């Protein structure tokens, strides 16, 4: 978790660029390019400050005044997207917008949700994070993750208990009603699970629920859920699974649900302007007093293109944007309008090595070569220079995964050892390998790859880039076993904060994603998946991490960071699971 300010970040990154050049890890062109980018950034800042400085002060003053006005007439705000339209003068327009965000009882929070619109308003018929985020506002889940402990806590469920290895008994909250007045009951839970697992429904989320065998209604507010086997990550299935009202759904059908998100959530749909924005309005009868959403209206805007998103943030039109490129953090901070907010997330990066020759014979089938690759790269150096605050993942697990063992030592940066290992493996002259790269998945991806390529070359691992711009082609190549010797990859663990969420898919020999095959590890992962005892599982995954660390089926990297941009008038924090909850946002006093 980074506590670096953008200024420090800037200095550190810049110094490291020079060092990388001195050490011959990046070429001159890259250095000059980087210097130009930084210079442009630094140049743009005074420009922005000079032109925007006065406005910012005005904004602050105005918004204070306007906030007072709004508080006195909280319900006067009739137009959710009022934004700049109604302000007569242009500068007042911005102030009006800001002030909207500042009022305690009414006001509008404008969030840029995504670059492209949601395909549907049916929470079971998509597999997008942006959809999950939107439906956390209109709907509710049985459980929700605590952002401090990363554990799932009761939400629409009041409690749950594992009464038999494969049976979970769950008590449900009473007195919760959907936006249309339908009650939330045991019948709702049973119907929702049956819907999402019904093959004819063809929900893209069915994979999350394969271990759910059935749901039995005990009474109106009690259900028993049976799993196909002992299922330690059962509670993970209670989140990202939104409840929809069964009676309405049966009466109106799927086409209706695709347009009308009726849930129990803290916000209700007011209007979906396709391709533009989703306008939500606060649910006045929300069951959970702890939530107490501060903004009357929540606008989730669709804006393609990160530069435009950034411009909207800096213009004060957007209160929150979900992606701020690392090299723009300083621009945001010095704008006086918004701040960059950094949060470490669960997603882990790696360079996958073809340890089983799945895409043809590979030198990486030899464990010594794989370890040589890990010793050849200066992971900590890249983190310091290019990914400040990144959490190392010495055996692929992010420290946020349940089961992470902090005593597992990461590979040391040791080029001599790497050379020696290569020699022992029978490659005194080094090896030539392919390295498949896809669309950038983290900040500074190209720079990291290039630095790594140089470091590998220094010990004799000569990797040739093949870069694909199409994410689908890239994923298909990977999943169909044509990824080649080396391949960039990263894994979000389906937001499951458990070792099983990443080890199974990346390393179990039955997974379509894996380029590694080890019966011992398979056995451990199966044990881990079948055990319900947390301590036993900790031990199982500790053992598994030692195998993975030694076997090095990938070049281990780090847990990613994301950077959000938040307007200075808004108090809000992102979460490590990247499920933004805008109902927690408050105007700054």
């Amino acid at each position, binding site marked *: 978790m980074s506590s670096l300010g953008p200024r420090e970040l800037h200095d550190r990154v810049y110094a490291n660029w020079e060092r990388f050049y001195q050490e011959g890890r990046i070429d001159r062109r890259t250095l000059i390019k980087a210097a130009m980018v930084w210079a442009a950034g630094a140049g743009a800042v005074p*420009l*922005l400050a000079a*032109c*925007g400085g006065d*406005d910012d002060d005005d904004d602050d003053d105005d918004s204070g005044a306007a906030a007072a006005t709004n508080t006195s007439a909280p319900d006067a705000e009739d137009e959710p*997207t009022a*934004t*700049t*339209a*109604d302000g007569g003068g*242009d*500068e007042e*327009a*911005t102030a009006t917008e800001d002030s909207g965000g500042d009022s305690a009882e009414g006001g509008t929070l404008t969030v840029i949700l995504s670059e*492209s*619109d949601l*395909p*549907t308003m049916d929470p079971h018929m998509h*597999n997008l994070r942006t959809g999950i985020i939107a439906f956390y506002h209109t709907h509710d889940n049985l459980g929700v993750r605590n952002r401090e402990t990363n554990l799932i806590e009761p939400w629409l469920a009041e409690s749950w208990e594992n009464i038999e290895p494969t049976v979970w008994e769950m008590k449900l909250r009473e007195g919760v009603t959907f936006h249309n007045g339908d009650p939330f009951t045991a019948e709702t839970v049973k119907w929702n699970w049956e819907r999402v697992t019904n093959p004819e429904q063809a929900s*893209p*989320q*069915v*994979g999350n629920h394969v271990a759910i065998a059935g749901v039995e209604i005990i009474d109106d507010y009690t259900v028993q859920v049976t799993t196909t086997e002992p299922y330690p990550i059962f509670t993970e299935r209670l989140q990202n699974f939104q409840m929809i009202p069964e009676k309405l759904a049966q009466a109106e059908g799927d086409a209706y649900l*695709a347009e009308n998100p009726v849930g129990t959530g803290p916000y209700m749909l007011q209007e979906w*302007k*396709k*391709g*533009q*924005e989703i306008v939500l309005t606060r649910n006045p009868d929300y069951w959970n007093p702890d939530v107490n959403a501060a903004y009357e209206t929540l606008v989730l*805007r*669709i*804006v*393609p*293109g990160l*530069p*435009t998103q950034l*411009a*909207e943030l*800096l*213009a*004060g*039109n957007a209160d929150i944007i979900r992606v701020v490129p690392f090299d723009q953090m300083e621009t945001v901070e010095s704008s006086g309008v918004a701040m960059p907010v950094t949060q470490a997330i669960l997603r882990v990066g790696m360079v996958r090595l073809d340890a089983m020759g799945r895409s043809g014979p590979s030198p990486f089938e030899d464990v010594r070569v794989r370890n040589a690759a890990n010793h050849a790269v200066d992971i900590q150096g890249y983190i310091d220079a290019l990914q400040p605050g990144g959490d190392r993942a010495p055996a692929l697990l992010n420290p946020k995964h349940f089961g992470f063992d902090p005593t597992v030592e990461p590979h040391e940066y040791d080029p001599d050892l790497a050379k020696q290992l290569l020699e022992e493996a029978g490659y005194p002259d080094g090896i030539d390998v392919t390295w498949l790269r896809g669309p950038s998945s983290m900040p500074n991806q190209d720079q990291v790859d290039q630095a790594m390529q140089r470091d590998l070359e220094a010990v004799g691992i000569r990797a040739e880039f093949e870069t694909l711009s*199409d994410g*689908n*082609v890239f*994923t*298909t190549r990977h*999943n*169909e076993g044509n990824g080649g010797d080396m391949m960039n990859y990263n894994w979000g663990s389906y937001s499951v904060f458990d070792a099983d969420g990443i080890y199974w*898919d990346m390393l179990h020999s039955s997974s*379509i994603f894996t380029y590694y095959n080890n019966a011992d590890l398979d056995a451990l992962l199966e044990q881990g998946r079948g055990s319900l005892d947390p301590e036993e599982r900790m031990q199982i995954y500790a053992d598994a991490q030692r195998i993975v660390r030694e076997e090095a089926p990938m070049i281990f990297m780090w847990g990613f960071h994301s950077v959000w941009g938040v307007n200075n008038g808004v108090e809000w924090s992102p979460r490590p699971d990247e499920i933004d909850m805008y109902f927690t946002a408050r105007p700054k006093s």
Partner: protein
Amino acid sequence: MGAYIANRLIQMVIAVFGISVIVFVITNMIGDPVNVLLPPETRFEEREVFREEMGFNRPLIVQYADFLSDAVRGDFGTSFRTERAALTIVLERMPATLLLTLAGTVLAIVIAIPMGIISAYKRYSFWDNLSTLFVVAGQAMPIFWLGLMLIIIFGVNLGWLPPSGYGEFGLDRLKHMILPTIVLGVFLAPVTERLVRSGVLDALTQDYVRTARAKGLKERVVLVRHALRNSIIPVITVLGLQFGQLLGGAVITETVFAWPGVGLLAIESIRNADFPVTQAAVVTLAVIISIVNLAVDLVVGVLDPRIRR
């Protein structure tokens, strides 16, 4: 005239047919729809079963024949992503695109014609040089760059105009339109301005202009009624031809300004490998471009009887 129109209509059908082939082949080359439609953890065998169910395993030519026979009836299939009719989605977005391209064209004409006349009339003067500078700059600036610069200057630094979006109907919409319209106008104006300039220059040396002047007509009348009118035909033709480019420019402009038009829809659908929508969008745009060009040729025919034959 009737034969002329019929001839042009046949040409149009052939052109749209050709475009439908190209777009169909290309969309099928850029990605595997199975990967879009199924979650990533789906096993290989399940994928193959699904591929067969959906008919994606059939030869491309058979799939194309199906596509074409439905498309001529206005059925481009259902969006993979939203499960709504692809053509409906495209038509929903069409007004935004037409509004923007129309505004861009008007602005381009408003800039180009006066500027071209002045340039021609005061050749090598300060104003001529200034307009040359504008033409060079307008041609040299990438459209997305200009868009971003306008956003930074007028949307962020000065805060005069909304940086992006479509706005509410009315004054708000007009405000949102200004920046993207400028981008498109600046993109389209230079070529038009050059044509007006050279056309008027040419006309000014003609006998009929000398005659008009000799008759003692006012310079303004000579310029507008005689010189400009006779040099406007190639300008109209080129405006028609450029309409296609303009829609291409609208794709970029719409993306930069989050303008919810067909161009943005096309980009989104390509990104999501939502083939039916991509195909519907491209074919619809092709039809519109063909119709505009046909209309332009007819207008020119009316203006200049020599062409009709």
